[in-house]
């Protein structure tokens, strides 16, 4: 056969087979994620090749640079109009680049940067054998109380792996609210969760408690992921596609060209409803809504406090972002089905978090339940199902994340011989001994309680007014009642700090390095600015509140 004939044979044989198109990736638009993930990989290499004594500085440097660069690229994308006019779906339909995604990514990156400062703090613990130590275990693999642990402490080891772990988690969080198909959503969920499980286990003090918290978090997290995955499978069965846009079309009944192979299941509403409920359940687990909140107090208490602060802030931002996108892009056609259910969840979350917090005696557990109550308040904004709902949730998350990191950073300062003194009775009279620290903490507590002139008030006001306009007035009433209940335990801590006699064996307040000071100062600044002059940021959130479909 001639060469031409052979060629013809090849092409005729190949023709009926659909060509696999080379994936088209818009690297520029995915830069924030790529930078952070790349830096995380660099961090792993640093662990392998850089001598132990310079690892800490190298890791902190790499992480700070990566987070700043990623934030700069988010700002550049937003300035370029990707948040508004040029919003579209990148990476073959996997990742959305739009207003909510960029706003939340910016928030996550800034929160992570501030969180990173608390990770890098090395002045709070007394020096161990002549070397400065941070809040993390000397050697994670050594058994608590064993000889190898003692040897590791003596050698002055520190677990600098926390920095790449943080960056991996941040990479996952960046993708989570931007994910535009179910598979990307799931992968982002795992990428953000796994490093967090590990980080939770790394406390330098009370290691057993820390490891217990990590195991609990891991088991329950895996359990929740299984539900999510099952829900994804059901939803795929219903729509024959993983893509958000495609599922939305099937829900609306406007889809064309459905796969005949899936004709049996396509459009089966039972699959849709059950699948939706299970995916939503996975996200509710991440935000810590009742009844999927049981992990929060135990994990928040056991995890190293810097990790708790970072996790409480950034995870909540990412997870609410994903929840918003799912409910507003994929399932708007179903809102008459999911709204009543979410009503119920929001009500029990707000009331449950506030009520159980009343009897807490540990400051970290108290803040954990407070975060549950706040998840409920944010859910009220999610339920609004209007544009104000989106912008108010974005604004709330931005304000809330800095208050949270700041508050946990203050918790790291109050210490006694056993490390952080988290039992509330030890905080009695703190205002007499360290008026500045107590005053700063009081500002954060007032922000949590939603007192005017703090970000908490502006945020709560925004979500509640969005919910009221969205026809959820009863929810607002319950929200205000739970705020009143919650105010009780926040104010109680303030009263305890300023109006009780200090205990003779009370804790001392450690003087932190500029790192933690920066974290706290940023927290106070954001709290006050968003409280006093919120308009600019409300406008920004409002501009960023349209999802690309």
């Amino acid at each position: 056969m001639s060469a031409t004939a052979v060629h013809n044979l090849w092409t005729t044989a190949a023709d009926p087979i659909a060509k696999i198109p080379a994936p088209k990736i818009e690297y520029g638009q995915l830069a924030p994620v790529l930078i952070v993930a790349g830096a995380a990989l660099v961090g792993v290499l640093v662990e392998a090749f850089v001598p132990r004594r310079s690892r800490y500085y190298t890791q902190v440097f790499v992480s700070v640079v990566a987070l700043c660069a990623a934030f700069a690229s988010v700002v550049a994308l937003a300035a370029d109009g990707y948040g508004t006019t040029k919003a579209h779906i990148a990476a073959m339909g996997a990742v959305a680049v739009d207003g909510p995604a960029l706003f939340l990514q910016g928030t996550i990156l800034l929160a992570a940067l501030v969180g990173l400062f608390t990770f890098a703090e090395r002045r709070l613990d007394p020096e161990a054998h002549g070397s400065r130590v941070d809040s993390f275990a000397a050697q994670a693999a050594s058994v608590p109380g064993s000889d190898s642990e003692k040897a590791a402490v003596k050698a002055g080891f520190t677990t600098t792996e926390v920095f790449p772990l943080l960056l991996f988690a941040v990479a996952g969080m960046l993708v989570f609210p931007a994910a535009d198909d179910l598979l990307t959503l799931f992968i982002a969920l795992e990428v953000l969760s796994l490093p967090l499980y590990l980080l939770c286990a790394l406390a330098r003090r009370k290691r057993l408690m820390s490891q217990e918290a990590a195991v609990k978090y891991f088991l329950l997290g895996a359990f929740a992921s299984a539900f999510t995955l099952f829900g994804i499978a059901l939803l795929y069965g219903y729509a024959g596609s993983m893509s958000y846009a495609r599922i939305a079309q099937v829900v609306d009944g406007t889809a064309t060209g459905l796969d005949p192979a899936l004709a049996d299941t396509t459009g089966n509403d039972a699959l849709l409803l059950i699948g939706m409920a299970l995916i939503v359940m996975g996200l509710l687990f991440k935000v810590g809504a009742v009844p999927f909140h049981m992990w929060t107090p135990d994990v928040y208490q056991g995890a190293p406090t810097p990790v708790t602060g970072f996790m409480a802030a950034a995870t909540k931002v990412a997870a609410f972002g994903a929840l918003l996108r799912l409910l507003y892009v994929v399932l708007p056609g179903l809102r008459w089905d999911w709204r009543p259910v979410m009503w119920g969840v929001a009500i029990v979350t707000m009331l449950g978090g506030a009520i159980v917090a009343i009897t807490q005696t540990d400051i970290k557990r108290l803040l954990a339940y407070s975060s549950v109550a706040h998840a409920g308040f944010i859910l009220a904004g999610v339920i609004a199902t209007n544009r104000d709902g989106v912008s108010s949730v974005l604004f709330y998350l931005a304000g809330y994340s800095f208050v949270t990191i700041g508050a946990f950073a203050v918790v790291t300062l109050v210490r006694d011989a056993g490390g952080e003194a988290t039992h509330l009775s030890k905080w009695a009279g703190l205002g007499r001994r360290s008026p500045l620290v107590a005053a700063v903490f009081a500002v954060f507590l007032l922000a949590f309680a939603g007192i005017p002139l703090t970000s908490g008030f502006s945020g709560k006001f925004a979500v509640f007014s969005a919910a009221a306009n969205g026809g959820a007035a009863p929810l607002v009433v319950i929200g205000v009642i739970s705020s009143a209940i919650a105010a009780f335990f926040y104010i109680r801590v303030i009263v305890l700090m300023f109006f009780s006699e200090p205990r003779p064996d009370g804790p001392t307040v450690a003087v932190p390095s500029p790192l933690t000071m920066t974290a706290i100062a940023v927290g106070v600044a954001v709290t006050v600015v968003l409280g006093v002059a919120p308009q600019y940021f409300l406008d920004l959130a409002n501009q960023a509140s349209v999802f690309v479909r």
Partner: protein
Amino acid sequence: MENLIALLVAAPLLGAAVLLVGGRRLDRAGHWLGTLLAAASFVIGLVLFASLLGKDAEHRTLVQHLWTWVPVESFRADVAFRLDQLSVTFVLLITGVGTLIHLYSVGYMAHDERRRRFFGYLNLFLAAMLILVLADNYLLLYVGWEGVGLASYLLIGFWQHKPSAATAAKKAFLVNRVGDIGLSIAIMLMFTTFGTFAFGPVLTSAGDASEGRLTAIALMLLLAACGKSAQVPLQSWLGDAMEGPTPVSALIHAATMVTAGVYLIVRSAAIFNGAPDAQVAVTVVGAVTLLFGAIVGCAKDDIKKALAGSTMSQIGYMVLAAGLGPIGYVFAIMHLVTHGFFKAGLFLGAGSVMHGMNDEVDMRKFGGLRKYMPVTFVTFGLGYLAIIGFPFLSGFYSKDAIIEAAFAKGGTQGWILGSVTLLGAAITAFYMTRVMLMTFFGERRWQPDADGHDPHPHESPTTMTIPMIVLAIGSVGAGFFFHLGDRFVHWLEPVTGHSEGDSPVGVSVITAATLVCLVVGVGIAWAMYGRRAVPAVAPRGSLLTRAARRDLLQDDFNHVVLVRGGEHLTRSLVYVDHTLVDGVVNGTAAGFGGMSGRLRRVQNGFVRSYAVSMFGGAALLVAATLLMRAV
């Protein structure tokens, strides 16, 4: 140009923040920083004043909108400043006199180890007062109003180690709160009536509201003004406020605080013009306070308290003038400015005397000080001549204008008010001459103190005398300057409006009567304190004298009527509160507490039960979703 307005407030506010947060590092230079920032604010004020002068009379209003704090439906809380003829007058007075007082305090507080903090509070006072007079709406004005209350509390109680100072601060704060309630109610009424707080819309549409509404708002504004300006019945805090360091008294009495009430009334002219009944109330308050303060001032042996009585009385003049409507607004402000000069000068002079006399305040222990403190004597003397209305000095023009305006009100009212102001002028001449004679003339009466230290009266340092000299120049010349060609009237007219009224008697007759009153007052004082030696121990005195020494029984009245009455009311309210309200509240709290304790038990620490709860939750979620579809 309008972008500069915020800097006026920002400079002292920055000073307060830096000085109060900065800590001990700033101890050495902090007082100069505070003075410099106050001066900077004054310079900005001058620049803005010059730019206003360059415009037409109709276009002399600059507005700077900074930001809007939480707009909700029609509720707009703007942070916006308005600079017009009225507010720039106040700005120059506040920052100008304020800067001089700062400078004076550098010397006066030199030996106080908390001097930095003192300057921080002074700066805060200026900033709050500037917010008050620059605000473009009543809500922001309220912010400044409360800020002034706070700063005065901090400064009056600055020497908090003295229980009397702490009590005086508390008293000032509490009495002011009563007035503040009036302002907040007035603002709420305004919002329900006009739907806004902004000066522009409220004042232009004031004519459309019913007279009843306007009267209610105006009376509440009057209550507020009474609190800040120490008018009867809320006057009791002013005398005790002398417990603060003397520069504070000067600041409160001349440049800030007590002028706020007058400002409020004049700024709200449109509201008062529509509420004649409220105007009558304003004139009555002014007239009563005018006499009240003057009588108290006659009986006090404490030099600062005598001056405090005088302030009360002079502010009474201003309030009375403001109550006269368009006839008097301009003169109220003119007297306020001239009073700012001479009263600040008098207080600084009194402080200078105290400085040289080991902080002695009893005038019966002074005497003959003119030889020892020549500069103080001359500046104080010029202030004295100005306040009694000596011809061609500041007080002569401004007080005379008020007396004329009072007669010009017309009718019986005009006669009554006119006579009261004339009587007040005579008493003013009497008590001020008394202060002058007891302090600077006659024999020396000071004695060695308990430790045997003989006081060595001496002149004060330059940082203290320079402000006194500058203020004395103002006391002498300001009135004539304002009077020349009716400058001040033309300047303020576009904001406040002005009408001549019709006086039943000629201007020259009134001036003559005023001068006769002046001579009579001075003459009686000379007969009592100049010709005869002043006894070192106060004589028992008549019933009126004894009552006046006790501030005309103001505290006794307050105690019997308000405190006792209040106690009874409180006791019965407490009973209701304990049994009824607390019953409900505690019951609810106990309910939630119990629920919390029970719910808490669910959190048992076992992962397996957490997982079960999650599973149950998921099942519920699915069931509920399906159920929603089914129904």
